[in-house]
């Protein structure tokens, strides 16, 4: 019986594996191969095999790497936390029955589907130090004496980036949570109410634990996708001021398509992937322990 179940599982999984293997294996291989060379598009096409040199450079010699690494952690975990902080309450609200609920559910997608080029123009204008709306409003309410250069100050720029990221990404969490909420049976709530639970307690002891698989899974997805996102940061600050907002994703991009150092860019991509693998590994382990 067990044998048969395994076979069924593999059969169901087969199409996916074939597809991914088929299309990903060549890029993956190329990437790893490139990381061991010093290919630069600007130095003629002679690329040599240089072994671990690129890796050694980034891990031990590059003064920017560890700062960028820390930035990446801040970017990823900051974004994801804020997205869940906004997404879960939104899902709870949008799960209630009220008029034109469908319309509001549709509109919550707006940040997620607005094109990145337009989103960055708008947020740049909101944060602009000279005529931005944020400065304007804060000064009208006398919360600020002088204009703050939001995107130009290393101390405020992360707040702005995370805010823009949370805004753009929380609809995804909302939808996932909304879908997850549909799976919670009414009877469970009935039973809990009979026992006298209500309000926040109801949320904390019934809803939240039952949402856990959804939270866990969409959380991991959010972490991994945010890790490789560079467009939003690039269009708002290009990684500046200085390298204050550079992340591994923007660093890979600038090495590959600004400096045209393909070998270096490839090795960064490999390093980046290894880190994420580690994070995911521990994340999945943590789930297994607290498994429902």
């Amino acid at each position, binding site marked *: 019986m067990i044998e048969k179940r*395994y076979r*069924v599982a593999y*059969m*169901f*999984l087969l*199409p*996916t594996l074939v*597809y*991914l293997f088929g*299309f990903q294996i060549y*890029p*993956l291989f*190329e*990437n790893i191969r490139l990381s061991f060379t010093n290919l630069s598009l600007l130095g003629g096409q002679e690329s040599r095999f240089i072994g671990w040199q690129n890796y050694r450079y980034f891990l031990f010699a590059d003064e920017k790497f560890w700062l960028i690494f820390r930035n990446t952690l801040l970017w990823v975990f900051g974004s994801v936390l804020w997205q869940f902080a*906004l997404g879960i309450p939104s899902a*709870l*609200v949008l799960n209630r029955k*009220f008029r034109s609920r*469908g*319309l*509001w*559910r549709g509109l919550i997608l*707006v*940040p*997620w*589907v*607005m*094109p*990145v*080029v*337009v989103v960055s123009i708008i947020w740049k204008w909101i944060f602009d130090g000279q005529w931005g709306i944020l400065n304007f409003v804060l000064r009208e309410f006398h919360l600020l004496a002088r204009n703050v250069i939001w995107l130009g100050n290393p101390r405020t720029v992360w707040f702005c980036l995370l805010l823009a990221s949370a805004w753009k990404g929380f*609809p995804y969490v909302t*939808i996932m949570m*909304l*879908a997850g909420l*549909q*799976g919670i*049976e009414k009877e469970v*709530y*009935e039973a809990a*109410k009979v026992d006298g639970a*209500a309000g926040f307690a*109801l*949320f904390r002891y019934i809803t939240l634990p039952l949402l856990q*698989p959804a939270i866990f*899974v969409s959380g*991991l*997805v959010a972490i*991994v996708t945010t890790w*490789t996102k560079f*467009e939003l940061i690039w269009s708002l600050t290009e990684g500046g001021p200085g390298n204050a907002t550079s992340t591994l994703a923007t660093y890979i*991009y600038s090495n590959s398509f600004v400096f045209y150092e*393909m070998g270096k*860019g490839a090795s960064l*991509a490999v390093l*980046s*992937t290894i880190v*994420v693998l580690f994070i*995911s590994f521990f994340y999945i382990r943590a789930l297994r322990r607290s498994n*429902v």
Partner: protein
Amino acid sequence: MEEGECMRIFRSLRTQYLYLFLIMAFTLFPFFWLVFNSFKPSREIFSARPTLYVKNPTLENYRWALGPKGANLGRYLLNSILAAGLTSLLTIVFATTGGYALGRFAFWGREGIGVFLVLSQMFQGPLIMIPWYKMASAMGIINTRLVLVLIYGTATIPTCVWLMSGFYHGVPKDLEEAAMIDGCSHFGAFWRIVLPLVVPGIIATGLYSFIIAWNDYQYALILTSSDFAKTVQVGLAELMGFFGKTSWGGIMASGVLTSLPVIVLFVVIQRYLIEGLTSGAVKS
């Protein structure tokens, strides 16, 4: 039975509407500003003091955005819808099957597969573009919507398999056993019993993959070269030219038009995201 009663987090109807208002205000204010500007003639968009009314409302920007001389969005929207739609369907097929395996069977290599999926997810971005261009060139599918669907698949399938596995996890155990005792094949049990219970998940992953495909800019930029397959994101980015005069009003209108299709789509399908789908199964 009042659905609201089950989830008495909010003490009153008023609080509920207050939360809704706050969330919507936060969500929509940049979009509102975009829509606002899209009805202004280009020159009024940059006035020094932000104004709350539109002095000379005009539809000119929309006409420009959709017209063949202007942004030609009509064609690009079609391409985007086709590419994103096909990606979504493709992903749903793979995710519902793969996620089923991952979510309900404790088979050997399960963790390994999970890790492989994460790995697959990570291989996105600038560095896969040269190998992909070579592959697509060899297959003769450069500048087609098909190549876009294929590359989007590599981004959406790993994620959606993961997501679906989470949804399958919440389905009561041994439901298939019960069905198979009654004479169903395994696949039949899957199709007729389990699948309807994860419809919210299917909606969510379908939407997710549609949006990922819809939002993509980098891949479409590199892999398409003419109006035949160009998507709306690339078309929009082209409007922000470096030399020539930019039609800011046109960009605003284009931004609005690019955002609308997905919203409309979701408003229509979101009705399947309602409680009650699962409780039915337990009774039977």
